[in-house]
């Protein structure tokens, strides 16, 4: 019996997937150990991929600098910062020395907070542009948003209405989406384990 090349990944997917699934439900040591082993292999691959990702980042940014694109100085500066951070991270004790802590607390954290502030700006911009009562449904949507604003800002004594919307409409709607997504994930899992989900790297 000969196996076609396309069937080998499908068989690996099926065996590994069913083993990990069984390890979650059955108290059989052999299955649990095999499940842990497969998950460990996956974690090792994911850890190695960080090196591969950093390497590909280097290559891409280096190409941009060599190609003399208009913003090449920014790409060059990013490469310099990347190299400095790697060197600083390798100074013993690796991952927790004072130089790395300085970079994380005084460079990364403020930049992260600044970018996080963009979220507030973005929501204001999105609401200003999108909240238009152009149709009946849009009007209902806008009314619900206004009531939620009153709830969060505790204005005009209208918090109970916003609370009711939050506790009854929003929570139940979110749960319905979660239940639907969960059922869809099971169907997707069946398709993936049987090798019929053709979107991921299989030749048609």
């Amino acid at each position: 019996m000969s196996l076609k090349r396309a069937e080998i990944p499908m068989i690996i997917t099926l065996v590994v997937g069913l083993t990990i699934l069984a390890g979650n439900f059955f108290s059989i040591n052999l299955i649990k150990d095999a499940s842990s082993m497969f998950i460990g292999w996956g974690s090792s691959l994911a850890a190695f991929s960080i090196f591969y990702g950093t390497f590909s980042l280097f290559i891409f940014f280096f190409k941009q600098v060599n190609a003399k694109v208009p913003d090449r100085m920014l790409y060059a500066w990013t490469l310099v910062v990347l190299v400095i951070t790697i060197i600083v991270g390798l100074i013993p004790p690796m991952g927790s020395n004072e130089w790395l802590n300085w970079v994380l607390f005084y460079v990364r954290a403020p930049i992260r907070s600044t970018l996080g502030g963009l979220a507030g700006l973005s929501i204001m911009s999105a609401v200003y542009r999108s909240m238009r009562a152009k149709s009946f449904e849009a009007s209902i949507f806008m009314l619900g948003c206004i009531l939620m604003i009153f709830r969060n800002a505790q204005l005009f004594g209208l918090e109970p209405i916003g609370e009711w919307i939050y506790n009854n409409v929003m929570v139940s709607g979110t749960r319905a989406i979660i239940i639907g997504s969960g059922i869809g994930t099971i169907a997707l899992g069946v398709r993936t384990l049987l090798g019929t989900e053709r979107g991921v790297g299989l030749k048609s």
Partner: protein
Amino acid sequence: MSLIVEGKLAQLLLLLTFSALSFYFMNRAKTKPPYIRSIAALEAIPEVVGRAAEMNRPVLFTPGAKEGWGLMLGKYAGQIISAFSVMGYVAEVAARMEAPLIITTAWPETQTIIADVVRNAYRRAGKEEAYSSDIIRYWSPLEYAYVAGTIGILKKENVASFIQIGPPSSGNMLILHETAAQCGCMQIGGTARGDALPFPALICDYVLMGEECMTAGAMLSGDNSQLGTIQGSDFARYIMLALLVLGFFTVNLGIPWIIDFLKM
């Protein structure tokens, strides 16, 4: 010692039932194709990509940006796999229409998978020579580093169409879609995360909501057996609805059967 882990018997029974339904309808669909309603967001992909082709500006696709690495091993793996299915379709349409394509990813372990999917998509479109590894841009598994890089692409490369489908962090999904809106992009957004769904619903032209993300791959394939699994998940939903209604009445009548069953 029990064979089944304590507290997981009900989960196992429900999983086996739903899987059996998917399997049954998958086989039934080979002779009796199911009717599945169309999803506007998937129907709009050629329109969105075509706009970019006409304007000779790139299409940007991102399969979500949930912070972290090793996400393919966790609970977001399903969303990521379904995002790759849509990505393969978008890449094929972009190759046929000769629209420039950029794909950004926050997860290093997905780079090789994305490269394979996109290369195969270009091959299916007969445009293998147009494929380049520069299409795929890996930034960082850190949320805001990824956001900063992707915003840079949206602005600097004058993207015409933006598609984001997959597991995001709420903040970065909002920032990316709003930036794309300010750049005048036509957008498709989608996620199975309920708390992040309001942002693409508010900003995007087309939205994939919850389970629509999971079924996207099956619907784009057009394969009857894959569509059969969608029909199976509809029946699973009826079972869940019946459990909810029964549970509501039995709990209010003081009968703990449903709750005791679900705790088994």
